[in-house]
């Protein structure tokens, strides 16, 4: 998230109620200090540069991650779309942000791999919509 986004978020009127608790504040502080994602059970291995995110942003990521972790714990057979997909989406979005930070050159030469990815995406989308 760049500076303009951070400034824009300041334009939200009033203080959003984020259901912050001392434990969540501690989780976020430790996350920022150590770089260790507080929900290891979700298997999210790659992370963006945390310094780019406000505490509000991290609280929002923490909230959605905590729901995913709770549902994962409650539902051992991984039957719902939410439980199967949300950790994956968090991983995808973290990876995308991490790549934005790395300034690596884009590899657009392998069309076949891109088409394979697209087919996987359509398959995933069909599963998500049919099961949801």
């Amino acid at each position, binding site marked *: *998230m760049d500076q303009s*986004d951070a400034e*824009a*978020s300041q*334009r*939200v*009127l*009033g*203080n*959003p*109620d*984020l*259901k912050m608790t001392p434990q969540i504040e501690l989780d976020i502080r430790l996350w920022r200090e150590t770089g260790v994602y507080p929900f290891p059970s979700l298997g999210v291995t790659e992370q*963006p540069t945390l310094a780019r995110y406000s505490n*509000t*942003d991290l609280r*929002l*990521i923490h*909230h*959605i991650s905590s*729901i995913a972790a709770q549902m994962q714990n409650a539902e051992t057979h991984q039957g719902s779309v939410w439980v199967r*997909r949300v950790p*994956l*989406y*968090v991983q*995808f*979005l973290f*990876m*995308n*942000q991490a*790549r934005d930070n790395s300034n690596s050159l*884009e*590899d*657009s030469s*392998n069309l076949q*791999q*891109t088409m394979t*990815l*697209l087919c996987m*995406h359509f398959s*995933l*989308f069909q599963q*998500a919509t049919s099961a949801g």
Partner: protein
Amino acid sequence: MHALLALSASHLSWLTECPATLQLSYHHRGLAFKGLPEAIGSFSKKNADAALAASILLSWQVTDW
């Protein structure tokens, strides 16, 4: 990332009934809807997964269909 932040803020606003939290979700949703066409316009292996994830997360938040 804004699509995920919007979903989270939207759920929190439902829990808290706080107008500022709802406004925060609208803010992130607006940024996500602005960023998604840009990502699709420069679609590549690098951003394909994130574009798909953002599309699905935003579709979950649409209430008028």
